[in-house]
């Protein structure tokens, strides 16, 4: 594994260096001393990138198949407009995690900020998944058009979700542990218990999540969760006069 000490380096230099390494056949790199540099691992289509420290915004933006592991916290835009691949955050992440994500997986061990997973979409076998170990802020899954978001709220006593869940949701599924208050769920979004066959899919993702983060999760049952899904794939179908 190639190692790069990123202290004092501009993101442009770091990404250019990584790209050069990748061109020469390297497929694994460790970035040390990262402190706020943006766009790390942007659009990488293969290989493994490990980040020590705190990367700046948009880590793994346009990611296209590579795996990125963040040993600390992520800032805004983790996996922004991501296409394929996997991002593992061992700490917390902030706002717009997985914005407009089309495929791949984002595992966050800790909590996430506002507007997480907004406008995620899926198409045929492109199916994005976000699993958050802790809590999520307001506007979770806004405009969501496909994919899966799971909020586990591990070790949390207070509500593990914010307000205004999934306004404009027209596809995909959000799964939240515990009860969810009707008050915070937006119009056009329905809640129901998790079906057995749905649980099988989710638990496979949870297994992968716990394995990647070396966690031992409590033995969940489907009844521990509530499922949120949209009433229609045509939220704007009836507001226009033709």
């Amino acid at each position: 594994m190639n190692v790069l000490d990123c202290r004092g380096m501009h993101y442009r230099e770091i990404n250019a260096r990584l790209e050069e390494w990748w061109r020469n056949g390297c497929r694994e790199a460790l970035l040390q001393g990262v402190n706020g540099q943006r766009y790390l691992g942007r659009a990488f289509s293969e290989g493994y990138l490990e980040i020590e420290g705190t990367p700046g915004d948009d880590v793994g933006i346009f990611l296209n198949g590579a795996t990125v592991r963040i040993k600390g916290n992520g800032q805004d835009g983790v996996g922004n407009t991501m296409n394929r691949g996997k991002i593992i955050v061992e700490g917390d992440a902030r706002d717009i995690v997985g914005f407009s994500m089309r495929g791949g997986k984002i595992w966050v061990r800790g909590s996430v900020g506002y507007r997480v997973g907004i406008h995620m979409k899926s198409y045929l076998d492109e199916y994005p998944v976000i699993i958050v170990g802790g809590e999520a802020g307001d506007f979770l899954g806004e405009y969501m058009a496909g994919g899966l978001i799971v909020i586990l709220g591990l070790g949390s006593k207070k509500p593990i979700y914010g307000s205004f869940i999934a306004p404009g949701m027209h596809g995909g599924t959000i799964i939240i542990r515990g009860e969810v208050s009707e008050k915070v769920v937006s119009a056009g979004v329905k809640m129901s218990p998790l079906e057995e066959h749905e649980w099988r899919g989710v638990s496979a993702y949870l297994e992968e999540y716990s394995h990647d983060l070396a966690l031992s999760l409590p033995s969940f049952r489907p009844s521990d969760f509530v499922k949120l899904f949209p009433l229609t794939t045509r939220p704007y179908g009836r507001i226009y006069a033709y």
Partner: protein
Amino acid sequence: MAKSLLFPEFKIERDAERCISCQVCVRQCANEVHSYDPEDDTVYSAEEHCVGCQRCVTLCPTGALEIRKREIGFRPNANWDVASIRNLYKQAETGGVLLTGMGCDKPYPIYWDHLLLNASQVTNPSIDPLREPIEIRTFLGKKEPFLEVAWSEEFAGLKTRLAPQLELSIPVLFSAMSYGSISYNAFRSLVEAAKEIGTFCNSGEGGLHPGFYPLGDWIIVQVASGRFGVTPEYLEVAAAVEIKIGQGAKPGIGGHLPGEKVSPEISRTRRIPVGSDAISPAPHHDIYSIEDLERLVFALKEATRYEKPISVKIAAVHNVAAIASGAVRAGADIVAIDGIRGGTGAAPQVIRDNVGIPIELALAQVDERLRKEGIRHRASIVIAGGIRSSSDVVKAIALGADAVYIGTSALLALGCHLCQKCYTGKCNWGIATQDPYLTKRLNPQMGKRRLVNLLRAWSLEIKEILGGMGINAIESLRGNREQLRAVGLTKEEAQVLGVKMAGEGW
């Protein structure tokens, strides 16, 4: 159900003596206006469905059809014009937001028609473009404030590394029109024409059909709030990337491609399921400030290795000059500004007709603001929104634009008759539709030829105008407002435009 109060907008006159009941009109009309009754061998017309697109009139082999705007016999009323009454009836019947297509058709002042161009007389003699070269090639992108040149035995040349540029053989590009809003054949015509002419077309916000990837060198791809189809390959194949913040026809609002238009091919391009609404939210949810815009500009520069210009497209709104300045400071290499007359495939009529400002005023203010701040060189300005002719192009450049986007003009060249019904998906001219029966009416080779012809004609005219001014390179006209004079404008209007009144000398 009660009878609709929606009166027909058009009157169809069929000359019974000329009509041979060949039923061309029946087959051509996707709105099902015409129908044939074999019993009495007569073609009938249901006027209430007619949108006035003139397809049947154009194709009728005997010239038997005429379609006219219907004179409605309401008592004349200066306040209640027929269009307002009709809209009101429609909303009372449907309860919905009125949709429309193409650009604003309200009679707001068209400032191009109040600006006159200069020509040389006696001194600074005019140039004959047929005899002498006139350069209209245009480069879009950031320009350096100064150049460092190395001059030694070993190396003579430029030391400054130039920012990436788009090279245009004529300062006209084709506006963003997505595959989805227009047909595959219409988009193919545009991109093939751009290639032949040496300019660019814009993918719009719907992603790029894989069939167009090989032509990426002539395509500017858009990144809009829905991020449809924005993959690394999409950014990779393009000549430049445009962040769409706003659109002149619908500033401040997003776009909804209705689920019924999301066909298998469109769904493949947008990467969403068939039949699902394709929603572009009003804002980009990762952009709430100029600093956030900068983050996306540089994300795109990073993803394209700083090899492609990044454009930011905004709508011309009241504070456009400050917003454009912010976009330049956020790192945009090109700022595209779309005025109130800019077209659309679908927009709420109330927004299209009432929000935004004319592009002429916006352009003059943006150019002036960027000059005053000393950052005009850091980005090219491309304007859009109702450019109709080569003289509009020349006036725009004299007001400070580097180039113009044409959308409506390009569609007119492809056969559009401005019926404004793009949002119905029933375009009889095969342009704004995905219906295979309709789309095959537009042959992309013929479409390309018509577009190439249009821009060839414009480039000849532009050279003619420039030669008359005694200017042999379009660079020398850019922002050269002495070549413009105002007629029929107030002092304030002329002031905002930064031009003198006709009759005033230098």
